[in-house]
């Protein structure tokens, strides 16, 4: 499939995207009047910072959902990768090696999930749910349940320095986005993802090795979760053994709000950008309005479930 065909099958992308844009403008408008300090450059920079971690994780989730799967282990893998990197730094490894260790941990988690799905025929929900328990559990065990914090300047630069005025996490998110968009829209690997998401059977008949594809998709989501986890660790200057909890849910929401249907085969990473953006604005705004985090949990949970319900209803009526 060529890029144009993909976009044509992507189901009224312009309409959906503009819907999200209107929602973003509305939310920004409301918070600008109700939340003190919301409409300021410093706060927007803050939103961009918070949003980058979610965006990177959600890019991985987009690939999974596009291919007709879901990865519930993203939060756990983020945590584990962050924790491994942190422990490696504490053990005196240079930052680059510590980061590689974290990335390797994330990819390994993804590879194991992918192996279960492609070689053992596990359903992707249950395989990734099991991995969620395992990665979260290992993170708790290796840290003995407490945070690992205080890193060298070199590592902290990832999270809190700027290059020509732009925060490094934002640059990392942008670079990741560019790479994933290239892979998705310009390579055969990318169009194969759409193919197995659309119909695995048809994809297999047309000569795509679907189990190899699934394995690769899970390795990629694991790797991206690890990137997100490491950036988060650096920004917080601490690896908390529950830091990633809930990111899988926010990522699913970012993907769905961004117009990639839960059924797979359509959509793309551009919408996910808007989805991640709107969720970050919501969280930031609710915070500034002074709603406590339990309220945020409830409201965002309800809104996200609502968005998914709307998505499923609109897609089933078509």
């Amino acid at each position, binding site marked *: 499939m060529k890029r144009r065909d993909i976009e044509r099958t992507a189901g009224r992308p312009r309409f959906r995207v503009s819907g999200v844009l209107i929602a973003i403008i509305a939310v920004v408008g409301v918070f600008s009047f109700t939340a003190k300090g919301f409409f300021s450059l410093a706060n927007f920079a803050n939103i961009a910072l918070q949003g980058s971690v979610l965006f990177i994780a959600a890019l991985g989730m987009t690939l999974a959902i596009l291919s007709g799967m879901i990865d519930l282990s993203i939060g756990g893998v983020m945590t584990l990768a962050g924790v491994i990197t942190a422990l490696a730094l504490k053990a005196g490894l240079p930052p680059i090696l510590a980061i590689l260790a974290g990335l390797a941990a994330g990819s390994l988690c993804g590879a194991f999930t992918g192996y279960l799905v492609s070689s053992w025929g*596990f359903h992707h929900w249950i395989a990734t749910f*099991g991995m969620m*328990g395992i990665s*979260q559990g290992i993170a708790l065990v290796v840290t003995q*349940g407490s945070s690992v914090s205080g890193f060298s300047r070199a590592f902290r630069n990832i999270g809190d320095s700027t290059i020509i005025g732009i925060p490094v996490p934002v640059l990392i998110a942008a670079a990741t986005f560019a790479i994933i968009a290239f892979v998705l829209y310009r390579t055969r690997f990318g169009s194969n993802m759409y193919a197995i998401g659309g119909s695995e059977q048809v994809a297999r008949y047309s000569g795509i090795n679907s189990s190899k594809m699934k394995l690769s998709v899970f390795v990629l989501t694991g790797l991206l979760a690890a990137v997100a986890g490491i950036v988060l660790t650096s920004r917080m200057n601490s690896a908390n053994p529950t830091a990633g909890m809930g990111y899988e849910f926010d990522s699913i929401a970012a993907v769905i709000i961004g117009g990639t249907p839960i059924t797979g085969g359509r959509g793309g990473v551009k919408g996910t950008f808007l989805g991640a953006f709107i969720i970050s604005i919501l969280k930031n705004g609710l915070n500034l309005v002074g709603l406590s985090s339990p309220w945020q*949990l*409830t409201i965002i949970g309800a809104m*996200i479930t609502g968005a998914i319900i709307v998505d499923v209803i609109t897609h089933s009526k078509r």
Partner: protein
Amino acid sequence: MRLAAQILKYSRLLIIAALFVGLTLASPVFLTGSNLINVVRQTALLAVLGFAMTLVILVGGIDLSIGSVLALSSCLAASYLKEPSTIVIGTIICLGVASACGFLNGLMVAKIKLPPFIATYGMSWMTRGLALVFMGGNIVYGFPKTFRFLGAGYMLGVPTPIWVMTIAFTVLYVVLHMTKIGRNVYATGANKEAAFLSGVKTDRVVIGLYTMAGFLVGLGALMYISRLNAAEPGIGESFALEAIAATLIGGTPFTGGEGGISRTLTGAFILTLLSNGMNLLGVSSLWQSAVFGSVIIFAIMLERISKKLGND
């Protein structure tokens, strides 16, 4: 090959036997009356939650919200349960709230056609959030004796939770295996389309099962906070993982239409032995989620292998 198939068929009994022998040898405390009563008591709670999970897994669903729904229904009912005069109201609130959450899950899955993982995961975040909001950082503790009887008391020398679990088991067993409702449940799980075409109101079956699962979670909530003697919004975080592990290791496959609650009872026993053993051997409780996650994966591998051998 046939021998291997036979071994796999009885693998659950073998696992239980191995755990029993191993733990008896490894820990002097394991084979004592008080520890075994403890194991049985914990099995009862996990079994009730496992039954809830099994019901929805039977129709190809899942319920990730059981831990959070347990927390919410406990928190909403706790202040009533604390006063001896309002225990009945508290019980009704607890069971009612949990059933209502189950009903909503059922609606989202059957009518709106949300994937069950997503619907119940969303429910899980919302109910956990509501529980936190409602309690506002407080904890309710110190329940009256009449209520504590449910989780910590004895009847005719047997811990009360065992009685509760036995009643739940019997009712569910009769409904699932001796009534038309039960046949409809298995038919819907095996092939929803075919069941629907042969006149089964599959949507009602699914909604009914999620509601029933919610009710069982409410029952589990009462048992749990009665034993804990406290209610707070953070309880039950690992219950969904445990209940899924108990169901799958018991031998009810994730795909639905097969298995049942008697298998889950075995599964709950295995899992409880495992965590009791880890406790006795001084393994940190931090290991639990990694172990339960691995049990889930191991259980499915076991099922795949036995299917393969069965076909040969």
